[in-house]
């Protein structure tokens, strides 16, 4: 009896896998991504569910939080299967693209309007920009004392190419009242508790940021539908700001006459102490300020950490650098823990708020263990710190230098 049941389970498991894999193309968009076919056993490969490269690291699977190791971010334009996932709730299911609507309303909207996706696409001019999005908590794992939340290392960042309409054009068609100061979003994801009435996350940006040329309501990423895990079929994209401002599965935008107060706008979420505090300090909510533009930062995306090279062999290194609303103006590397810094070649961004590529050819003075450290400087003169920057209760904004290990033999 036991054996036959095992056999049944094995068969059911295979069937489950078959369903998952077979359905990948036909039903990919409808696949209940957070619910791995209950009763048929867990599919062996979570990467099939989330449709990401096997090399990504799964920090959390309910909700999905998945980051990209630096060497897999080597592409100049981040491909869909290598873009990190930072979800707060459960991905919406049974998305019907023809029924999807976006409503613009709020106390500071002159004439609230609802658009179907088709109306949105046909009513406004299309724009495509490469925009860097980075989770506010990227780098959290290095803070001491530790900060609660997903323990991101360096991989909650990416810079795909986004296509959509300017948020400004859509807001203008609705009409913005003179008292408008902020904008908030609502999406179709479901709260972890399963309560359909509970809003998972509803953040936003000041009106000034919303009206930027590069602030998009996007339906495409790298020329294709946005991946389900990253906000299909519609999302906001605010380059250079905490990615949590770029609402996914977007269904509603509210124009506010006050700072938006949706879930994860208030309290300690996506906020840092208004004045610097000593590590471990308890900070009252009223002394926490909302994170806006992200700090200057860079990654070494080639080679992968751990390269062993021969003596007198030169080493080509490269990567990307970004700086929130600013541009990166200089890029340097060090192989002696910051005693000396050397200049890298730095490309301008393809458009504002896109990451910039840098490269260098370096050589080592002799055999041994080395670390290659990279440091970017932004247009305001800010440089990445070598140690972990200011401690904050939730562990945001760690822009410390990235480094890789190299051995010369």
């Amino acid at each position, binding site marked *: 009896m036991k054996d036959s049941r095992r056999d049944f389970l094995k068969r059911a498991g295979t069937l489950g896998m078959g369903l998952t894999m077979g359905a990948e193309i036909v039903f990919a968009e409808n696949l209940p991504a957070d619910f791995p076919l209950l009763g048929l056993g867990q599919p062996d490969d979570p990467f099939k569910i989330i449709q990401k490269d096997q090399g990504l690291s799964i920090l959390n699977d*309910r*909700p999905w939080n998945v980051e990209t190791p630096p060497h897999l971010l080597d592409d100049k334009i981040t491909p869909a299967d290598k873009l990190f996932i930072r979800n707060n709730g459960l991905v919406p299911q049974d998305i019907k693209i023809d029924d999807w609507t976006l409503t613009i309303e709020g106390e500071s909207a002159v004439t609230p309007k609802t658009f179907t996706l088709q109306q949105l696409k046909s009513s406004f001019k299309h724009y495509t920009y490469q925009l860097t999005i980075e989770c506010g908590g990227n780098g959290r794992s290095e803070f001491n004392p530790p900060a609660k939340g997903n*323990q991101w290392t360096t991989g909650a960042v990416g810079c795909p190419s986004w296509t959509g309409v300017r948020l400004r054009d859509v807001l203008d068609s609705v009409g913005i009242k003179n008292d408008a100061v902020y904008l908030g979003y609502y999406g179709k994801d479901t709260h972890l*508790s399963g309560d359909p009435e509970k809003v998972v996350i509803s953040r936003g940006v000041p009106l000034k940021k919303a009206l930027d040329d590069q602030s998009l309501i996007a339906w495409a990423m790298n020329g294709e539908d946005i991946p389900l895990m990253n906000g299909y079929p519609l999302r906001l994209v605010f380059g250079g700001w905490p990615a949590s401002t770029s609402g996914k599965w977007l269904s509603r935008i509210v124009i506010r006459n006050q700072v938006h107060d949706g879930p994860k706008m208030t309290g300690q979420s996506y906020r840092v102490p208004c004045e610097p505090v000593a590590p471990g300090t308890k900070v009252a909510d009223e002394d926490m300020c909302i994170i806006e533009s992200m700090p200057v930062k860079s990654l070494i995306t080639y080679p992968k950490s751990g390269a062993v*090279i*021969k003596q007198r062999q*030169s080493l080509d290194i490269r990567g990307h650098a970004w700086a929130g609303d600013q541009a990166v103006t200089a890029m340097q590397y060090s192989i002696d823990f910051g005693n000396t810094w050397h200049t890298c070649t730095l490309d301008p961004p393809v458009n504002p708020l896109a990451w910039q590529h840098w490269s260098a050819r370096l050589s080592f003075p002799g055999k041994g263990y080395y670390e290659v450290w990279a440091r970017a400087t932004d247009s305001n003169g800010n440089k990445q710190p*070598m140690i972990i920057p200011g401690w904050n209760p939730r562990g945001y904004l760690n822009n410390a230098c990235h480094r890789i290990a190299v051995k010369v033999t």
Partner: protein
Amino acid sequence: MSDFSGEKIINSLRRLVNLLSTLLGLVLILGVSLIYLELYYDPQHFEVFAKNQDEESVTDLAESTAEIDLIKDGIHIPTGLIDDVNLDLVVSNCTACHSAKLITQNRSSREGWQSMIRWMQESQKLWDLGENEEAILDYLAKNYAPDQKGRRVPLTNIEWYELEP
């Protein structure tokens, strides 16, 4: 005349009800005694009875319990949590809404873990843990305490590989 007949019918009904009540009472007493005797003289009878009824589901339950409880190298395989006292409470209370990975990747003091519980209760619909809270905090504070790592840790887990020129 009609009043007299009505009274007669009611009386007959009363007698019938009384008779039925007595009979029912007797059956009940007999039944309870029988069950008592059965249990007293053959304590396995009840189990055998259950087995006949639910043999398959009991087997199923035992097997799936084994899968749910699988511990390897001190780790609870289905969740990745460290095996220790009160693991069951942590699994049942902390993984209903979110993945256990949210616990295993975090480190905090007892106060820190408690503040996370409070935050989840205030904003994420976590229920009152009652007397289990202390036990859960014991488990978390012991098994997921912070490491002292300073302002920058050495690079670890480096996978060395030959890089061709």
